[in-house]
């Protein structure tokens, strides 16, 4: 029996097209990363003696761990604020006419069109002692002395949330747009109230967008060096600033490398939690 020629394995096709990108990643991404790892495995600043000293130093130091902890917490707070504020906007977007849609998408995209530095300085003006918020509250007689908003965790979270908001809203808009609006109607006609419809139909189906938005926002928020240092000031220490301080001011490259590797692993861990949640959500969101 003449067997039909086996179809070529699809993965063997066009692999050549991926070579330039693979090479690019190899040279500009993987190689520096390996160099970073190599550097972090030295106990002295001149990188002559091998050892795990830098990692031990970080992992046994309550201060370093608290910096890592507060950075991861900052990301969670910013992500939560973005989700709570971004979801209604995305939901609204799907339910208004085309003209309002244009306005909403413009408002959502606008922050992406201005530099992070400019936006962050705008927040300094808004949150300052004589800034817009304090001036308004004082003129209304609600407070007597200005509130401390700048250089607080609260200020950093608010500013970061605004800066990173598009990263949350855009995936949500896409995810909500994919949901068939007939499902809403069906749910209502079967007797579910609007909240029940939201929690049973809309939210589960939008989970892939929520997961994507959270991952993007989280990663962007914890690494946002400029906003963190300008709004947080010189005494609120997060991982990017800690890293900068060790690498640039102190020229302690091995410790800075160890910090980056630890930070990288911590972020990867958080992101993989998100991805796992995303995979679980696919049980719902297969539509």
């Amino acid at each position, binding site marked *: 029996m003449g067997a039909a020629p086996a179809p070529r394995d699809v993965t063997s096709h066009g692999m050549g097209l991926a070579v330039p990108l693979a090479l690019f990643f190899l040279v500009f991404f993987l190689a520096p990363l390996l160099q970073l790892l190599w550097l972090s495995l030295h106990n002295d600043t001149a990188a002559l003696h091998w050892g795990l000293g830098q990692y031990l130093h970080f992992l046994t130091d309550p201060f370093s761990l608290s910096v890592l902890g507060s950075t991861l917490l900052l990301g969670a707070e910013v992500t939560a604020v973005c989700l709570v504020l971004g979801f209604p906007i995305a939901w609204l977007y799907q339910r208004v006419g085309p003209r309002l849609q244009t306005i909403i998408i413009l408002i959502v995209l606008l922050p992406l069109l201005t530099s992070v530095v400019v936006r962050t*300085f705008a927040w*300094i003006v808004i949150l*300052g002692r004589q800034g817009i918020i304090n001036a308004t509250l004082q003129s209304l007689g609600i407070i007597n002395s200005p509130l401390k908003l700048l*250089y607080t965790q609260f200020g950093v979270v608010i500013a970061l949330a605004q800066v990173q908001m598009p990263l949350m809203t855009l995936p949500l808009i896409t995810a909500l747009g994919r949901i068939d609006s007939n499902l809403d109607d069906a749910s209502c006609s079967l007797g579910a109230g609007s909240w029940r419809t939201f929690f049973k139909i809309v939210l589960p189906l939008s989970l892939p967008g929520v997961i994507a938005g959270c991952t993007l926002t989280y990663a962007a928020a914890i690494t946002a060096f400029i906003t963190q240092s300008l709004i947080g000031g010189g005494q609120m220490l997060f991982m990017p600033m800690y890293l900068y301080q060790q690498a640039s001011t*102190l020229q*302690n490259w091995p410790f800075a490398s160890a910090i980056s590797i630890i930070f990288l692993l911590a972020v990867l861990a958080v992101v993989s939690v998100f991805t796992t949640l995303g995979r679980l959500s696919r049980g719902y969101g297969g539509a």
Partner: protein
Amino acid sequence: MIMNRRSLITTALTLGAMKAFPGLSYAQARPLVFATFTGSWEEAHKAVLVPAFRKANADAAMVLDPMLSVDQIAKVNAAKANPPIDVMLHDPGPALVAIGQDLVEPYPVEKSAYYKDLIAEAQEPMGPAPFFQVVGLTYNPEAVKTPPTSWADLWKSEFKGRVGITNLNSTLGTGWLVEIAKMRGGSEANVDPGFKAIEELKPNLAAVAANPGALATLFQQGQIDISPGNFNAIQILKARGVPVEFVAPKEGAIAFKTTIHIVKNSPNRELAFKLIEASLTPEVQTTLMNPPYLIVPTNSKVTMGGEIARVLAKDTAELKQKFVFQDWKKINEQRSAWIERFNREIKI
């Protein structure tokens, strides 16, 4: 298409070899690269030093590459054999690091026409100091009616919630910590009294800025009314109409030598020397002393005038008497420990 494995390996090996032996990448004639500081320094050098150098050297090609001292060190360190920078500019702390890491060449003093005219403090054989930066008290004259006279004024109760400082990442922050430690009986070797003093300053602190630039803008926002500050940084704000004044405290204004160095293995050694020579000439220093730059000259043949004579010093003798120079060799020994301590202890 299937990528030939052999050619892939060849490419990878070549790239790897170029990384391991930077000398392999053939030496290329490139313009002189001068790493200056960002902001007002870049402006001043672009407007005054570069034209003076070009005029004296038949329009020799050169570029300014503005970055922080520590970044200059990192860049040169990453490619010692074929440095991407020819001339480096350093604050005293980073200068010692660069010298310690063998990144700079001794200045050819015997060839120099101007070195001997520099005041003694500026004569550094590993790289002379063409400029001083001066740190004193800066304040908002609209909010602070009586000008401060001493570092101790920052602790006055009337300045509750109105004082700004920077953390120790900057030369400004570290230098100031040493100075207040000295004021309370400490020294470069012992800054404990300084940390205690900052602890007591906490009720007055409105902000710990991440860098001197951020500190300067806080005056603009009305976030702070008084702070230790850099003379030059304040002049830029003043020129923009921000109400801010500088005063040298009676303990002495902190003077940081800004030294300029020829990078070791520079392919443009001769031009680098000539650029540095240009920075030491009385002509360049005189122009830089005048508005809008107001950079303190180090060539003793320059007659001080204008704002510098008004708030800092009329001549070299008064300058020496009013300025405090710190021992950065001692400071560098413990700086990382101080930064760590500041990270831990100073929370407001």
